[in-house]
């Protein structure tokens, strides 16, 4: 039977020692709270800056057959967003795109002006390099320009034919997004937040788990610990609680480290989702709650690995299958939508990832949440039993 006093003695000692480990502090607290926001901030800052630069930049555009469509070419040459260059052949323009002297080329068909004037469609072709993001952007800009030209030409044609503007618009559609600004933002956040939280819960405790069991074997302290009156169950419980605590702290730090910089409303996110992102506190509480069985499950699995390994180095070699077990469902959650079939609520890790996705996207489903929570606790319990059983077996603890 487990005596709380001895379990807490083991737990308090392990926590004290763990929190003195600089590697743990760096990986579990400093990195998610300082490095991650800094990285996200830096990436978003430069992405936003580049977006602004793109918007302000002048597109170098090549024109082949400029004399065949003077109406369009004249407009293009006078547009401030473009710098037009004339080319004699399609091949020359293509080479120029490859050489990056121009980003995009407009190939005008021979009889373009005639067709345009006859109220037909003028043949045009756009050349661009899909592999080059600047060329891609230039292609979009050129299409927008032509779209604008088309719209104006269409208006002229309708007017000339004495028709109503509605003639060219058989339907009038208005689209309204019922999601609040925060929900839209949360949807974007929900794409990657579950993945990062699952990773933090699973891997936040690795260093601690390996140190507490495989490390103890390596240093010879395990023997001296097992020879005290504390039972193996008390010892393993104390150790498991330590790993769980560290994993939970890692997850909380990861949530804070991601939400904080985003919630403070970076300009880029405003552009991306139309509003700043905010997740309400209730969502965070639900996320924290669902993280507990996840952290318990992964902590127990880590303890199983650590108990089995003879030393920390050997434990590292067993981590690859563990990575696969955890990463695959987590990655799958980024592909599957939040409204997945109920059977996914029974799949470990995937159920938690999808539940988090639902929470962050305002798609909270109590039934899905309930099943996920219950099955996750069940899997965590089974993993704990496995860890305790491994710790009881002398052929595992004293493997040579």
């Amino acid at each position, binding site marked *: 039977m487990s005596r709380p006093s001895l379990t807490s*003695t083991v737990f308090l000692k392990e926590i*004290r020692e763990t929190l003195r480990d600089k590697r743990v502090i760096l990986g579990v607290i400093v990195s998610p709270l300082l490095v991650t926001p800094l990285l996200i901030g830096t990436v978003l800052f430069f992405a936003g800056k580049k977006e602004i630069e793109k918007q302000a930049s002048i597109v170098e555009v090549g024109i082949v057959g400029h004399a065949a469509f003077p109406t369009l070419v004249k407009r293009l040459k006078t547009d401030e967003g473009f710098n037009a260059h004339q080319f004699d052949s399609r091949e020359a323009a293509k080479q120029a795109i490859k050489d990056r002297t121009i980003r995009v080329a407009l190939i005008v068909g021979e009889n373009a002006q005639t067709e345009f004037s006859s109220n037909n469609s003028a043949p045009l072709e756009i050349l661009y390099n899909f592999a080059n993001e600047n060329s891609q952007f230039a292609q979009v800009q050129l299409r927008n320009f032509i779209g604008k030209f088309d719209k104006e030409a269409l208006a002229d044609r309708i007017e000339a034919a004495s028709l109503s503007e509605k003639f060219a618009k058989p339907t009038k559609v208005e689209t309204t997004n019922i999601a609040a600004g925060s929900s839209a933002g949360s949807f974007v956040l929900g794409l990657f937040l579950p993945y990062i939280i699952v990773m933090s819960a699973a891997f936040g405790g690795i260093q601690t788990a390996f140190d507490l069991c495989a490390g103890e074997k390596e*240093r010879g302290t395990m*023997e*001296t610990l097992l020879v*005290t*009156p504390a039972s193996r169950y008390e010892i393993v419980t104390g150790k498991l609680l330590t790993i769980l605590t560290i994993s939970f702290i890692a997850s909380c730090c990861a949530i804070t480290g991601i939400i904080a910089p985003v919630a403070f409303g970076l300009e880029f996110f405003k552009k991306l989702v139309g509003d700043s992102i905010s997740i309400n506190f209730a969502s965070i509480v639900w996320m924290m709650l669902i993280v507990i069985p996840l952290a318990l499950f992964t902590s127990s699995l880590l303890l199983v690995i650590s108990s089995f390994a003879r030393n920390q180095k050997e434990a590292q070699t067993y981590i690859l299958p563990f990575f696969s077990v955890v990463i695959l469902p987590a990655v799958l959650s980024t592909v599957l939508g939040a409204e997945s079939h109920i059977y996914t609520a029974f799949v470990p890790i995937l159920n938690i990832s999808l539940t988090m996705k639902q929470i962050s996207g305002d798609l909270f489903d109590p039934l899905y949440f309930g099943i996920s929570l219950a099955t996750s606790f069940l899997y965590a319990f089974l993993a704990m039993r496995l860890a305790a059983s491994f710790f009881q077996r002398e052929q595992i603890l004293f493997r040579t």
Partner: protein
Amino acid sequence: MGLLDYHIIYQQLKALAKSDENNSIGDSFNNAFFSIILLERTFLTASNTPKTVIVAENLTKTFRDRKRGFVKAVSNISLTCEPGKIFGLLGANGAGKTTTLRMLATLLEPTRGTATIAGFSIRDDPQEVRRNIGFLSGSTALYGRLSAREMIQYFGKLNGMSGPELTSRINDLVERLEIGEFQNGRCDKLSTGQKQRVSIARSIVHSPPIMIFDEPTSGLDVMTSQTIMAFIEQCRNDSLTVVFSTHIMSEVERLCDHVAIVHKGIIAANGSVRDLYAQTSEPSIEKAFLKIVNGMDTENV
């Protein structure tokens, strides 16, 4: 003074301490108070300890090995240790010494046979067995990120000690083992000698009546080995029962009251050092050991 006398003094002091609202009883008095508690604890332990403190009967341990199948590491080992004596297990590497000690310390469960330690069965009452033993090996086995004092305190707590009783015991050990200078320094920063002293303190913090040493000087330099040897002798002077394993002959000659030569998992010879000389007609333990072991190997061939 008998146990009853100690108990009466203890009860009177306890009542006095309770009524001491003005804290007029000084620290020295409190120290004396807890010394008596310790004395009582030692007395109780001593009075409950049977005459033969370790009795092992047919201890056998079989391991399953993937390549070799079932391997008998220890076979039918029976031994008896008298209180206040040093019992040595002498054998080459892989002879079965560590397995035997691990079974006595309840780290491994015997495949067959049993043993009683201080009257408690290793099979039925392993926690009581562990409460009555101190375990020390050649590895200092300290937690690097704990201080020396925290280390001793942790093991005291694991052995059920707490509060002023534990503090008093730690202070006593810190003084006796000269740990004071580095008691608040992290264990991973200590020298080997300092670590060994902390390791000793860790193993005796709960005042066990029995000490088990598993090759305690293995890998240590001469100076540190001498500290350990002196400590084992001190244990005998303090009337503790000691079982220790070694493959160093000089340690056996210097320390052991009784020796069992372990070879290939069985006890090949058993007796005092003088008995072994007599049995083999050899003048030294080294020669006696080799004669016994080689004789066994020849018989097997």
